[in-house]
């Protein structure tokens, strides 16, 4: 066997290992134990203002009508369940939606932050995706940064009268990309490169997760468009019913 062949086989082996595991790759939840304590705490603190705002807005909605509690809980369960569904694929590998974009468009940003932290906690407890010490960091990237961008883009596009399908796609796609970038940044901050420090490290984390995250973001964008289109076709009353959640933002 020539040296070249050996190298090729080695690369193939690594790839096959990666692809045999990635079928289980969820959105980028930072795993339990992956962040040093100071970053666990720092990211947690950064979430607090958003969570307090979210909590107050939910509380107000419930004061208006107590019945909204089951609606909100259903919204949370809905986000959990769609993020655990396998996206159909040819190769048989299974990836999952993050549901951030869809959640932000349907339920509004401030609601999603609170539902998001509960969903992330449940994913850590029930599915071992993410963790307790990394809950702050994951909440920041997936329940705050991603949805905030998605919601912002969706609203901006609406104002600029961009085609609806395009704006939904952009909101979901960019929300995903942003989440993935924030996560890469969070990891890089904890594990800077020997040369080039944090920024070089961001590049590495972005690069390593790109093969799974980029196609996933495109898929998520397309699926979100399809879902919203389907809903607008036959679920007008239900869409109206959740409008309350988005009001006052």
């Amino acid at each position: 066997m020539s040296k070249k062949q050996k190298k090729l086989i080695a690369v193939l082996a690594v790839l096959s290992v990666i692809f045999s595991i990635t079928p289980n790759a969820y959105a980028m939840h930072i795993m339990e134990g992956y962040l040093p304590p100071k970053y666990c705490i720092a990211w947690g603190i950064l979430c607090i203002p958003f969570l307090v705002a979210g909590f107050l807005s939910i509380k107000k909605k419930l004061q208006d009508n107590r019945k909204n509690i089951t609606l909100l809980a259903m919204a949370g369960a809905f986000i959990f369940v769609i993020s655990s569904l396998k996206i159909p694929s040819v190769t048989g590998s299974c990836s999952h939606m993050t549901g951030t974009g869809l959640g932000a468009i349907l339920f509004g940003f401030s609601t999603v932050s609170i539902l998001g932290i509960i969903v992330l906690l449940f994913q850590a407890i029930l599915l071992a995706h993410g963790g307790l010490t990394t809950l702050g960091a994951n909440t920041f990237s997936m329940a705050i940064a991603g949805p905030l961008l998605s919601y912002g883009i969706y609203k901006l596009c609406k104002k600029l009268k961009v085609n609806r399908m395009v704006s939904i796609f952009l909101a979901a796609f960019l929300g995903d990309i942003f989440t993935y970038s924030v996560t890469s940044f969070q990891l890089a901050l904890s594990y800077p490169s020997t040369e080039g420090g944090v920024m070089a490290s961001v590049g590495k984390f972005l690069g390593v997760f790109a093969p799974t995250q980029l196609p996933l973001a495109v898929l998520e964008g397309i699926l979100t468009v399809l879902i919203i289109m389907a809903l607008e076709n036959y679920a007008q009353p239900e869409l109206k019913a959740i409008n309350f959640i988005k009001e006052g933002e």
Partner: protein
Amino acid sequence: MKKTHSHVSIDYYAYISGLGNWNTVYKVIFSLGALITVIAANSVFISAATIIFMLYLNVVIGKIHGMDYLRLLWVPAAFILLGGIAIMIQFGSGAGSLFSIRFFWTRLYITTDNLRLSLNTALKAFAAISAFYMVTLSTPMGEIISVFRKVRVPGLILELMHLIYRYIFILSDTNRAQKEAAKSRNGYCDLKTSFRTFSGEIANLFVMSMKKADMYYDAMEARGYEGDCDFWEEKKALTGGQLVYGFLYGALLILIFFIERRS
């Protein structure tokens, strides 16, 4: 008891675990203490000791099948592997590297330090997950929520947690039925159809969930619910037997700490 929700097997173990009768607060403190020790100590030996100790607790005392436990530990493997690669491989001039190859305009290389760091991180992650599993694999969600109540998480959030937990299973049951019905009508025959079916399913699930929410509220109200959910919490006694394991783990940590300092 059948395991019908395959994707939430952790939940299933929580109801059959041998650690199920342990005092919940003690269990959470134990697990959280181990978790924090592992990430704060940042030591290969403490990580390794925790992995083994938790393996013993979860498999021998908790009576979770060994293969199932290993399979559960494997869940975060993809992340740990990819993250490990990103931490391990450096690019730049590559001074003092263990191994290096040319990569476009720069070089990819690994140094001993990077190798050690990435292995240490992986080990730490597995140890932290093992420690967290000690609680999640043995504690039903209702009890976990009761601990949140004890640390004064607002009642509104606790109520949402209770309801979301319950609805997750209702919605995934609904989705499973939808999926089977869709398959029986060839809804997943090719990729294009699959995407349409998949998004239709999710849209449908949304409509169902919103429709049901109203009825579920009625059912709660019919049983005297007036706006604050108070759930029954089982009291579980803290016994000497349970404490022994905590002391053993603590002693193990102290032992490792001294050995590490002397060497």
